[in-house]
């Protein structure tokens, strides 16, 4: 039974066409996958259905009626709930307050907090057992926040649930329990729209998929009838161009040390981190989510003033207590949370690309900014990374996620890089853009002989690109894998500390 049908949806933002002719059908009790490259219009589509955006043209039929929601409140009242990609949680309220937010029940004049707490507990127990619902949201890890976000959408008892990349911040075990819950909801007759960049997830959970490319739907596949063919799906997403793995000569590294870190400590999050990065090497950082990898990257970029330990760059000792020190020594960070840490969202692509240059201070910096020269450089960067933007004067927030990430990488390009720190650079970036990004970085490593430290939540990326891989567990480096030892099995074994006596708690 059709629950939702969207026909011929069109939407443009300024000069950029986000959706040219988008169609989507959702069935009761089925999980529909929404696939496509970044900027293909998946998020826009979801937001139009829930009334966050208004469409320029087209029709949405929900439960047999033509609807056009002006805001998310109307959609919610009709039973359409959405889990947002950029979290919609309020950091200063507790978990249970967030879960019932907007749908609080009343007991006479006052709020009924007992029911609210029970509802919250009941849902989170199934998704993430052991989560304390009395915690404030700003105290949670990104993965836990994502779970709360999902719980919040579910708490409204929706008939149509839209999940926009819910798994990007989750680790394997959390994804599994989410899928179990999704299947249960589908059995109860809830229609679900599911977006993800991880193909295996879509293959596992979805009943059918709709594939978007450049703002229009290019294919619909019913897995029951057409079978589950991953290659075919990838073909539709990229438009026929097959994703070829980047071939890498793993023996090209030299023995010249570029970046040497000894006994790095940060509060009780990082403990005795030591490593020696060689020239032309890609050093990976892996392990379970939230074991201090993110903090390590930030510490190396000089974000924490109270780190202890010895750091040497090309033999010279430096103090990594300020970001500007790191940048002056050409240790450059591409942060994972681009919107929070990497970009001035409201500024143009051009300003974002040249800010690091201005931040470097007087040295080699003319008193008056040479606009024309920098604009040319910026256009080259946009060209090289094939950033999809109308002009370089467009605000960065109008670009899609993948293109935003390219801008973050792009702003370091004009520099002479010693060490490039990549903190989950492909988070929320689609297959095609991910390949572009890594291909470019690998090329730079070879040409300029620069060194890279890569943290990725996706193990496949680590296997494919790293020369050496450090596994972190509770702030310590517990294993270092090299060359042929970098395999899925060995990474998982090291991450979970298989064979160690330490006992792993459930839900960790």
């Amino acid at each position, binding site marked *: 039974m059709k629950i939702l049908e969207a026909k011929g949806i069109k939407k443009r933002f300024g000069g950029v066409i986000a959706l040219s002719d988008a169609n989507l059908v959702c069935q009761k009790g089925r999980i529909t996958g929404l696939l496509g490259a970044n900027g293909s219009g998946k998020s826009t589509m979801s937001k139009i259905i829930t009334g*966050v955006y208004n469409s320029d043209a087209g029709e949405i039929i929900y439960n047999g009626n033509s609807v056009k929601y002006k*805001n*998310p*409140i109307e959609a919610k009242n009709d039973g359409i709930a959405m889990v947002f990609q950029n979290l*919609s949680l309020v*950091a200063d309220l507790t978990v249970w307050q967030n879960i019932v*937010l907007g749908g*609080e029940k009343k007991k006479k004049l*006052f709020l009924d907090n007992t029911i609210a707490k029970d509802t919250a507990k009941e849902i989170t127990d199934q998704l993430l057992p052991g989560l304390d619902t009395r915690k404030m949201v700003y105290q949670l890890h990104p993965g836990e926040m994502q779970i709360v976000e999902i719980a919040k959408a579910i708490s409204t008892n929706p008939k149509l649930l839209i999940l926009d990349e819910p798994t990007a911040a989750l680790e394997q075990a959390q994804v599994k329990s989410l899928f179990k819950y999704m299947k249960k909801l589908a059995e109860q007759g809830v229609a679900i729209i599911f977006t993800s960049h991880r193909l295996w997830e879509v293959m596992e959970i979805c009943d059918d998929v709709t594939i978007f490319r450049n703002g229009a739907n290019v294919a619909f596949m019913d897995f029951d009838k057409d079978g589950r063919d991953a290659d075919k799906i990838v073909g539709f997403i990229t438009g026929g161009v097959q994703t070829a793995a980047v071939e890498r000569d793993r023996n090209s590294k030299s023995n010249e040390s570029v970046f040497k870190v000894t006994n790095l400590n940060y*509060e009780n999050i990082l403990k005795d981190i030591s490593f020696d990065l060689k020239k032309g090497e890609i050093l990976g950082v892996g392990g379970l989510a939230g074991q201090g990898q993110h903090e390590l990257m930030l510490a190396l970029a000089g974000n924490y003033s109270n780190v202890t330990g010895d750091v040497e760059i090309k033999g010279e000792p430096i103090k990594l207590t300020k970001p500007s020190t790191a940048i002056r020594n050409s240790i450059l960070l591409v942060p994972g949370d681009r919107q929070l840490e990497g970009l001035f969202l409201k500024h143009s692509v051009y300003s974002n690309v040249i800010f690091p240059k201005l931040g470097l201070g007087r040295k080699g910096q003319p008193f008056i900014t040479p606009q024309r020269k920098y604009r040319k450089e910026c256009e080259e960067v946009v060209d090289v990374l094939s950033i999809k933007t109308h002009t370089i004067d467009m605000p960065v927030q109008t670009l899609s996620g993948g293109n935003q990430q390219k801008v973050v990488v792009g702003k370091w390009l004009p520099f002479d890089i010693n060490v490039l720190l990549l903190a989950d650079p492909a988070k929320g970036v689609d297959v095609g853009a991910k390949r572009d990004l890594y291909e470019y970085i690998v090329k730079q490593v070879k040409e300029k002989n620069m060194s890279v430290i890569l943290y990725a939540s996706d193990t496949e990326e680590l296997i494919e690109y790293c020369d050496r891989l450090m596994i972190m567990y509770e702030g310590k480096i517990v294993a270092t894998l090299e060359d042929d030892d970098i395999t899925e099995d060995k990474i998982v074994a090291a991450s979970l500390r298989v064979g160690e006596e330490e006992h792993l708690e459930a839900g960790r």
Partner: protein
Amino acid sequence: MFIAIAILQKNFFAMKSIVRNFNAFIPLILLTMGQAIVILSGGLDLSAGTALSLFTCVLTMVMKKGVPVTGFYALLITLGVAFIVGIINGIGIGYLRIPPVIVTFATSYMWLGAALFIRPTPGGESVDWFKAFYNFGSITGVSPALEAFGKVIPPSLILLIIGCILWFIVSKTRTGRYIYAVGSNNESAYVSGINTAKVQMQACILNSLFIFLAALFFVGQNQSGDARLGDPLTLRAVAAAVVGGIALTGGKGNVYLALIGALILSFVNKIIFFADIPYAFQTLVSGVIIIVAIASSQAYSLYSQRASLKESKLS
């Protein structure tokens, strides 16, 4: 700090002195609580002081000396004015989405203009029983029992209690929760299905009610209205709210703690007054102390946040 004042002001612990001290603090406390609510909802009210002046002018315009019943009319009419003031600020901040500083800066001139129109010079009439908002003892023909009661619990304290009860009730309703949500993250609140504009307007109206209570105090005390009365209180209330731990970014803090902030700020002024500092330096010193107080409260909240962060990492 209390000790310092007790030493400087010899009769500090005398009952009369305590009552007088509290009386002097009440208006700032009420304005601070109102201001705290607006700041929590992500706004800021620069028109609080002139709104206060306007209310005193309206009250004293309606009342006729010697006709007790006009006092009730005055209460009702001014309450209506308070609602209108809140609604206008709320429309600007919530519905038109103009930055709160700009909206309330502009409206502060509207209220001032209206107040000056009603009462170009301080003055006006008030009914006798209005003194009850300040001191039972000053009303002619009041029963001795009530007068004695007023010595234990000053009437101005009753105004404060009304204010606290008002916020207590609101904080238990959806509006109370939503004020925090909207102030903390407007967009998140919006996509959660909250009518953010309405919540911001409700916060403005609540603030207006607190200002109204402060106006009752002033008219009870002075028996007159003054268009220039409230001006200096506006920014002091903002500073007091920040001292009390209300984050100017919105969504963080506790209205009752803001009350403590107002107390601290009031005591600071008391110390300076009694410390025999030359008058020319008094304002300068109070400015410095406000900065120190705010800086230390920021440092404390930063510290406690880090501590809780550590705790969550450990567990």
